[in-house]
């Protein structure tokens, strides 16, 4: 169960991105909606959905929607989720959103995220309006019946409540560190 509930405010964060810049939630205060997605490289559910993530960001960017995609996985256990590999993945897949590294896992813990991918949609006031899965068919984009994320964005952009505000996130578990670690200094 996520810590951020529908109607709750977004929790601020500042994280390094694969583009070499730091990205803070506050940097995107002019956007109509912000979508925070906990993700990673290795998870097959992410890989099944990531083209749709790129497509949805592309479709909604002109309407003021900003995706911020965060990997919180422990790269010691899953080397394919290292920051360097994140940079490669973003380049290979043409990520059109910041891909951020939550090395200390503090952001994932603050949000109470458990899975990858796991979506949090915040409205203009940065209140949570949708939490859960991208859609209802990770396996076949043509077989999707409920486009939860797109439907939530349409509602939020129209100033309405999404018809579905919560679905179970479907994906791999976030790979937590085995021991607490302090954030690297640089």
């Amino acid at each position, binding site marked *: 169960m996520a810590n951020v509930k529908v109607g709750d405010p977004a929790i601020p964060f500042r994280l390094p991105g694969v583009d070499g810049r730091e990205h803070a939630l506050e940097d995107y205060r002019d956007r109509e909606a912000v979508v925070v997605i906990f993700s990673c490289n290795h998870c*097959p559910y992410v890989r099944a959905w990531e083209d749709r993530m790129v497509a949805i960001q592309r479709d909604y960017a002109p309407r003021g929607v900003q995706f911020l995609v965060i990997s919180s996985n422990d790269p010691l256990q*899953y080397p394919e989720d290292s920051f360097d590999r994140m940079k490669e993945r973003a380049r290979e897949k043409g990520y059109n959103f910041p891909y951020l590294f939550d090395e200390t896992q503090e952001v994932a813990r603050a949000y109470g995220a458990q899975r990858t991918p796991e979506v949090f949609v915040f409205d203009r006031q940065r209140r949570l309006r949708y939490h859960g899965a991208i859609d209802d068919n990770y*396996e076949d984009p043509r077989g999707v019946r409920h486009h939860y994320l797109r439907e939530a964005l349409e509602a939020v952009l129209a100033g309405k409540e999404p018809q579905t505000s919560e679905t179970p996130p479907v994906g791999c578990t976030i790979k937590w560190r085995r021991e607490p670690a302090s954030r690297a200094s640089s």
Partner: protein
Amino acid sequence: MRVTFLYWEGCPSHEEALARLRRVLEEEGVEPSVEVVRVDTEEDARRWKFVGSPTILVEGEDVAPAPGAPYRLTCRAYVLEDGRISPLPSVDQIRAAVRRARAARETPNR
């Protein structure tokens, strides 16, 4: 036919994968008795040579061999026939493995 289904609880797809496997076995006229193995620890993963959940062995052969993949508790990525990635093997991948195993059994060694 000896069919083994290995899974890890950390991946949500195993029930759907097992149902898919049983459906294919039934369609292929194979006794749908499947040994179901829950892999819980890294030690289990090494013992079973488990490269991710779910893994399906037909007569000991992986339906989608992944040579060199590490043995560990993870969700498995299958490359489908059209190049897409899926957390589940496709019906066709399972069916092909069943048919290979059947053909191997029916073909004399000499």
